[in-house]
């Protein structure tokens, strides 16, 4: 029997996801237009965290591979973008694509090693990646700018975009807003692709590999290839995120890609709920909007600025531990539980 609400939504998953993303686009435009330039730049920051977190949640949540090296992969994307945008010859969209492709290539390398490892071994190896890669930028300081890093010229809006923007909103298009648009359009595109991928055959077999290696292998799945593929998809997302980061921050420097970045991404994914893209969005919002709030509390309580700035990572760490102990499913897991309980209670009456 067909339930009533179903009829209003298209049957095809692709169409459903497209509709969702279009709705998201409307929301993005509304939010970006009604908020201050400061919020715009915060939202731009959130967009690159969310792109990387969405990629990571596919890897860790769906395929069961943990990666502490996504900060390093973002660095690859950011430095690629910075190098390509240097001469003003390459349009930024092409630079972003190349950044994603280069990072995906690195992802093949890392993923090939990672596919043989599991759990703590994988965590240790990717941790080494996260700690080691920033050193490369210092070693090749002629090309990559050493400690200071490379400054990135952020792209200026083309006329047609500015015109269209004026046509729709009758407002000025600030640079921060334009960057936020780039970030969020990229994010929506990534979400669309990942959501389809998760629901496709690949999503299914990745879950099968995560849940039972032996059974998956007996069913004829190539474990190694599937794991590398998951890593490559995830790395490409991290590369895109790095590209957006480079343009938003206008800088690619080793200090921006510390181990804390990788662990923040992990926090976002875990707190939101492993394996859920909505959870990844929620977690990245937390990464952006929590630190100012906590820092304000800290300075209000009499801490110095430097000390207060460290409160945010302290909260990340504590939250990571508490979530794992009390609600390993994260926020989306909790929501789902309450939802189900609500339905069950409603049904039993």
């Amino acid at each position, binding site marked *: 029997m067909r339930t009533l609400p179903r009829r209003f939504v298209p049957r095809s998953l692709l169409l459903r996801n497209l509709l969702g993303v279009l709705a998201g686009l409307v929301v993005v435009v509304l939010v970006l237009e009604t908020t201050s330039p400061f919020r715009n730049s915060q939202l731009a920051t959130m967009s690159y965290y969310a792109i990387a977190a969405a990629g990571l949640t596919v890897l860790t949540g769906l395929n069961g591979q943990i990666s502490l090296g996504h900060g390093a992969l973002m660095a690859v994307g950011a430095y690629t973008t910075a190098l390509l945008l240097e001469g003003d010859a390459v349009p930024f969209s092409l630079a972003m694509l190349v950044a994603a492709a280069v990072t995906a290539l690195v992802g093949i390398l890392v993923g090939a090693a990672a596919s043989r490892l599991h759990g703590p071994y994988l965590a240790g190896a990717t941790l080494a990646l996260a700690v080691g890669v920033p050193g490369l930028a210092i070693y090749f300081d002629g090309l990559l700018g050493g400690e200071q890093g490379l400054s990135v010229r952020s792209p200026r809006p083309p006329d047609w975009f500015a015109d269209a923007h004026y046509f729709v909103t009758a407002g000025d298009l600030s640079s921060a807003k334009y960057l936020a648009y780039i970030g969020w359009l990229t994010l929506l595109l990534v979400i669309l692709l990942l959501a389809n991928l998760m629901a496709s055959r690949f999503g299914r077999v990745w879950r099968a590999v995560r849940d039972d290696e032996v059974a998956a292998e007996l069913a004829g799945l190539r474990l190694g290839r599937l794991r590398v593929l998951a890593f490559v998809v995830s790395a490409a997302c991290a590369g895109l995120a790095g590209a957006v980061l480079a343009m938003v921050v206008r800088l690619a420097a080793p200090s921006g890609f510390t181990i804390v970045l990788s662990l923040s991404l992990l926090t976002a994914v875990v707190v939101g709920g492993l394996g859920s893209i909505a959870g990844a969005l929620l977690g990245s919002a937390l990464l952006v909007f929590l630190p100012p709030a906590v820092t304000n509390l800290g300075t209000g309580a009499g801490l110095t600025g*430097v000390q207060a700035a460290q409160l945010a990572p302290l909260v990340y760490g504590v939250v990571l531990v508490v979530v794992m102990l009390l609600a390993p499913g994260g926020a989306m897991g909790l929501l789902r539980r309450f939802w189900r309980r609500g339905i069950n209670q409603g049904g039993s009456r």
Partner: protein
Amino acid sequence: MQQFVNFTLGGLSQGAIYAAFALALVLIWRATRIINFAQGAMAMFTTYLALTLIESGLSYWAGFAAALAGGLVLGALVERVVMRPVEGGPELNAVIVTLGLFVAFQALAAILFGATFQSFPAPFGLRGFTVGEMTIAFTPFSVFVIASVVVVMLALTALFRFTDLGLRMRASAFSQEVSRLLGVRVGRMLTLGWALAAVVGSLAGLLIAGGNLVHPAYMDAVIVYGFVAAVLGGLESPGGAVAGGLIIGLALSYVSGYLGSELVTLAALAILVAVLLVRPRGLFSRVAARRV
């Protein structure tokens, strides 16, 4: 030639510290099948404890003892309060919890002790011995480093070999269920194991800090080196961890000396990947029988 000798000597004393750190990881891995990624952050924390005491006017040795005692308490607390619920669960959950502790300890240290570089005193001289007319990179402090690591190894070996407590700890690491049936308080043994590991980790932290600068992230790279050393030794065997630590110390010293210090962590990563791809169970593991 003199350069090579110096790199080798420097590598040996660094390697001794990595060996101690790897040993701490192995102790916990054997007991609970968890890699404690917070080990470095915990050691950093106790080192700051020592530094605070020393700066308030106490002697180096008072700070040293306080850091080790602090490690003991911290290790026991962390196991009892935070790790117990995730022991034996999905391995990813335990990894994530230790990472959370890692971030939290590092931030807490920055809040309590400040995020700037501070110099940490050394109890012995830092000028190299002179052999003939050349000065070698082997200082009285390096002697102290190697001696204290050797003492710790001997003490641990004696504990596990010759005491009743050591036997009970080994039994609960080997099979929790059987040990419990035989009346071993397994929970207490696990807590004790974590506490001991944290003491060894704190020692490594103190030894690395001696005569150097400390800041909240100074142990980050050491976690990687200690982990690579432990994996090199097979994660199971304390002897393997020590050998792994020395090998890593030497290898990294050569890389740092001949290629550049920025590449050290990547070299560690390369060694790790090579070992895991060629001999996933480590260089020193015996062939494990797999029961079907």
